[in-house]
């Protein structure tokens, strides 16, 4: 995927290559990512560049990336979805229950599990979207409320216990599966992100998403069915969470009800780091890719260099602040 959205503004200033870089926040953030990776590669090359670490970072980033794809769409419409972690948990609980009900361990059970995961997630997206688009409720409040309902529902369905009974075939085939050394989860996330990127940057659907985020009134006057589009965007965000929930089942061989309490904030952080504005209208999906991997690479790298756990929290916070600060300076210098 190539960048399309702001090509018009930049074509005039290409003579000075520095300006060209400044005009592209996602390139700045890619540079930051490259610098961070280079520092760790220098400090402990044998560990940081080892297969297990590269795979670990790729898999960690991939599951987060899928959630962030949906979040990018939502934030570009100037909305927010805090319920992604809760929807992830809810859909993964439903998925396990469905796969257990099927009983056999085969492609049939795996497919039912995937459909249930995506389907239940889509229902949550529909609920969020309808309340936000048609009932005109604030997206922050709506999705804050659905967190509680979805998480409580997940605990009711599971009895509060993390459920096991994920079919071995998908644990081995997807969760820990590799093809030519590349984890299957990474390939799934890669294909998924490319498709979502093409939709965002190359189709009318993507264009409408930007239009609603930059000026909802104008979009309405231009004949866009804003309500329907918003509902679709929230369904996309939820389905992304559902897919991530299914992949999380295959990775952890169980539901992970307690493990997703801050997924929403992590996703928002990644999307904003990637250059998407919280006020809507601007942003790119490939910026989000870099935004996802900065915290992931930092987390892994700081463990590898042996920084104590509490100092890691401090270091990650500082780097995130620096990244946002640099981005703000860039905007002001324009």
């Amino acid at each position, binding site marked *: 995927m190539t960048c399309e959205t702001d090509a018009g503004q930049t074509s005039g200033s290409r003579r000075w290559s520095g300006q060209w870089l400044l005009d592209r926040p996602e390139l700045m953030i890619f540079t930051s990512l490259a610098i961070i990776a280079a520092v760790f590669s*220098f*400090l*402990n090359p*044998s*560990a*940081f560049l*080892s297969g*297990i*670490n590269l*795979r*670990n970072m790729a898999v*960690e980033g991939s599951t987060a990336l899928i959630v962030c794809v949906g979040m990018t769409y939502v934030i570009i419409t100037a909305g927010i979805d805090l319920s992604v972690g809760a929807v992830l948990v809810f859909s993964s609980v439903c998925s396990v229950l469905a796969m257990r009900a099927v009983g056999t361990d085969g492609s049939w059970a795996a497919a039912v599990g995937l459909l249930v995961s995506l389907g239940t997630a889509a229902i949550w997206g529909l609920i969020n979207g309808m309340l936000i688009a048609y009932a005109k409720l604030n997206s922050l409040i709506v999705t804050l409320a659905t967190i509680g309902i979805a998480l409580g529902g997940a605990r009711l369905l599971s*009895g*509060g*216990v*993390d459920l*096991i009974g994920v079919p071995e075939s998908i*644990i081995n085939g997807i*969760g*820990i599966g590799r093809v030519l050394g590349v984890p299957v989860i990474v390939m799934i996330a890669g294909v998924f992100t490319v498709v979502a990127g093409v939709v965002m940057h190359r189709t009318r659907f993507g264009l409408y998403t930007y239009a609603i985020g930059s000026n909802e009134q104008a979009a309405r006057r231009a004949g866009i069915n804003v309500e329907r589009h918003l509902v679709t965007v929230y369904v996309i965000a939820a389905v992304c969470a559902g897919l991530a929930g299914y992949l*999380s089942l295959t*990775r*952890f*061989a*169980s539901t*992970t009800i*307690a*493990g*997703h*309490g801050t997924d929403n904030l992590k996703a928002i952080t990644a999307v904003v780091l990637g250059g998407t504005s919280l006020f809507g209208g601007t942003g790119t999906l490939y910026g989000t890719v870099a935004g996802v991997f900065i915290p992931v690479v930092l*987390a*892994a790298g700081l*463990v*590898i*260099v*042996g*920084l*104590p*756990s*509490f*100092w890691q*929290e401090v270091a990650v916070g500082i780097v995130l602040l620096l990244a946002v600060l640099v981005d703000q300076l860039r905007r002001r210098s324009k």
Partner: protein
Amino acid sequence: MNLHRHLLMLCAISLVGVGRAGAQQTIALVLAQRNSGFHQAIACGARAAARELGVRINVQAAPVYSAVDQIPLLNSVMATAPDAIVIDPAHATSLLAPLREAARAGAKIVAVDTSINDPSILSAVIATDNVAVGREAAEALASLIGNRSGKVAMINSIPGISTVDARIRGFEKAIEDYPNLTYIGNQFAGENVPAAQSVFVSLMSANPDLVGVAALSNNPAMGVAAGIRATGVAERVVAVAVDADEVEIAALRGGFLDALIIQRPYEMGYEGVTQAVAAVRGEPVETPIRTETVTATRENIDQPSVQMYLYRGNCI
């Protein structure tokens, strides 16, 4: 010491890359939680053993007690190719695949506090006999209540943690032996202190004849203590808890909790590293090791034989 430690931390990034000691063995301790006195004590015991045995130790702890946070941490630690991993697995099933991979990569693996569903990849297991912990909690509760009769209840964290489940079994079995006590069941409040407090207050209002309550791990115990303080029933309700975090000890001294069943996490960390080093060096390994417990009350809390087991330290 403290300044030295901080300087060391600040320099850690620049030092570690350079300082790869040649023949010295490295043991990694991968804890499932960082904000708990229990885990601090494990880390202190592990560091002490590492010092005595002359091995390097890398202590890492996940932010939240969940496999989602512990697995990437384990993988990052494995990238540094330690000779052995000492771990308290946050989930018996989820940790299987990454620990199998770690074992294939050649690391010896020792589980402390909790175990996993396939113990065959473990060199040693060091844990408390948690059924006994539950039984001791029930016995302490019954003896403190004496010959009064009434209802007793339990408030616990999360179902599905093998240690907590075993304690609940031990408690429920043992409480049957006291005909003057009517056990009205267990409520789960999550690892959430305010939630445990509100569960206790609700239980108390629904059952004015409650004479005893047990909380078999630290977070619900702190909630119960806060609930007893809020409702002003410390005089007539006996509360027994497991673990010895600072807040629990303060509650014991203040009269809100009446007995603490204390585990020995320091010993878990110490034995964990000791057995891991033995496994790496090809020496005989002792497994499973059952760590003991000690029951603390207001009367004996200041005795050295109890003081030495309180959960303290700054080792993570």
